[in-house]
């Protein structure tokens, strides 16, 4: 039995985010996305995985409403996206924290912009700062934190606004390897606790297989969704056991074989 057997299609899951025939051509004629259609099931973490140039970050920013598609539509819970909205929150590759603000204020910033009263937003932010494992660091400033801790603040900020959809743009790529592993484990816990839809851009195959319920494999030139893989690896075993699990390793290998021809 091959690892392919694990990649079973799901029958009719509830869809949180739907991308319909989206094309994005940047000024200057660079085509980042070509007629892309993909759906993201509710309550799951879906990875967008692919080599550089496949348009995965562009797709994420279009879903976020930060970029306008040249044609096509994105809907979140059936409502078309016209710009950024409260039901989506973004986690940035380079954290995008405000260096002049404390951890607490950074984590509460989305709520501050929404006009939530100070005591209330601080209480919510404190809860999520604790959830991402930064309790006790509330009054420090970003430059006093390591890269991994900064990204935890970025995650707390995105969780604090209680958006249904979390968009994560290579959140661990600026974090060192050991921190990244720990962070991935913690992310699984957050996904399990929060019942939100996560869309996760990564270029790491291992990371995608480890954290995702489903992986959308994107390929470049022309950019397209080549397939959707559901790595049904066991979640009831320890993180280290997962990383040694033959099913896990088979899926990683299979994705690599599919991608290798596209890697220069």
């Amino acid at each position, binding site marked *: 039995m091959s690892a392919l057997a694990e990649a079973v299609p799901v029958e009719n899951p509830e869809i949180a985010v739907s991308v319909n025939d989206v094309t994005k051509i940047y000024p200057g004629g660079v085509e980042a996305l070509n007629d892309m259609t993909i759906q993201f099931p509710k309550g799951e973490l879906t990875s967008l995985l692919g080599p550089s140039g496949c348009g995965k970050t562009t797709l994420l920013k279009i879903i976020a409403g*930060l970029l306008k598609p040249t044609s096509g539509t994105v809907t979140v819970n059936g409502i078309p996206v016209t710009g950024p909205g409260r039901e989506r*929150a973004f986690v940035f590759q380079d954290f995008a924290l405000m260096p002049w603000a404390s951890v607490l204020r950074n984590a509460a910033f989305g709520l501050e912009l929404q006009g939530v009263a100070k005591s209330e937003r601080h209480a919510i932010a404190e809860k999520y700062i604790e959830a991402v494992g930064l309790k006790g660091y509330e009054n420090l400033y970003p430059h006093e934190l390591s890269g991994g801790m900064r990204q935890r603040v970025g995650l707390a900020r995105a969780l604090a606004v209680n958006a249904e959809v979390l968009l994560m743009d290579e959140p661990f790529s600026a974090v060192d390897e050991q921190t990244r592993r720990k962070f991935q484990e913690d992310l699984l816990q957050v996904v399990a606790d929060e019942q939100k839809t996560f869309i996760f851009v990564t270029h790491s195959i291992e990371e995608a297989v480890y954290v995702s319920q489903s992986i959308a494999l994107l390929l470049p030139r022309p950019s397209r969704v080549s397939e959707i893989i559901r790595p049904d690896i066991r979640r009831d075993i320890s993180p280290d056991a997962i990383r040694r699990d033959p099913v896990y390793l088979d899926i990683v290998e299979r994705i690599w074989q599919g991608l290798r021809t596209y890697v220069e």
Partner: protein
Amino acid sequence: MNIFGIKIPMMASLLIWAVVWEIVGQLELSILLPPFSHIIIRLFEIVPTATFFSAFWITAKCFLIGTGIAIIVGIPVGVLMGRSIVIDRMLLPWVNMFLSAPLTALVPVLMTLFGFGTKTIILTTVLFAVWIIVLDARAGVKNITPSLIEMTKSFQANFWQAFTMVYVWAALPEILAGIRLGCIRSVKGVIIGQLLVSVVGFGRLFELYSANFLMEHMWALLFVLFFFAFLIAEGLGILERKFEYYAASRG
């Protein structure tokens, strides 16, 4: 600086120049160059006088109001230019032109429009200071990490929130540099304005001293002004360095 293993303080060279000045002054080569010690004595003589104090007060008032206006106008304009290509295209040629223009030539025009009073001096100060503040605020906003702007958008900040909670703070290192340079130019503006108007403040004193060949008074006054200009620049420099840490952390 070290000479023969002895640590020499920063300002020590000024002492040597003061000694040279004293010697040259004592030789009585020119009426323009009185001995250094005489100037210092004169300095302590004129500083406590009411005339000096009222001149100082007018100067300080014009400086503070002029610089204040330049900052209040300059920062928003600079931030807007940094964020909007249309506004930038509209204003940048003017800002660059005025930044390098010989503004002194404009003061007589201001005098005919606003009279020989503090209004003209304040406006001169504003004209000297505002352009560099605009340009630095603009540069600061253009340097904001793109993801910080995307963050502001993705959490749906409105224009006012983005402006006051993110852009101004993110551009603060450049804005402070602009304010420091603006203040230095303000000092020039406020003095040049007074010299040309020449009936109020230090302008009147300079006019009085030079017309009567009171070179010691003249130099004493200059020393006071140089000292204050230096103090303002250094004070703002210290403030600026306090915020440097996050210019580095912006990456």
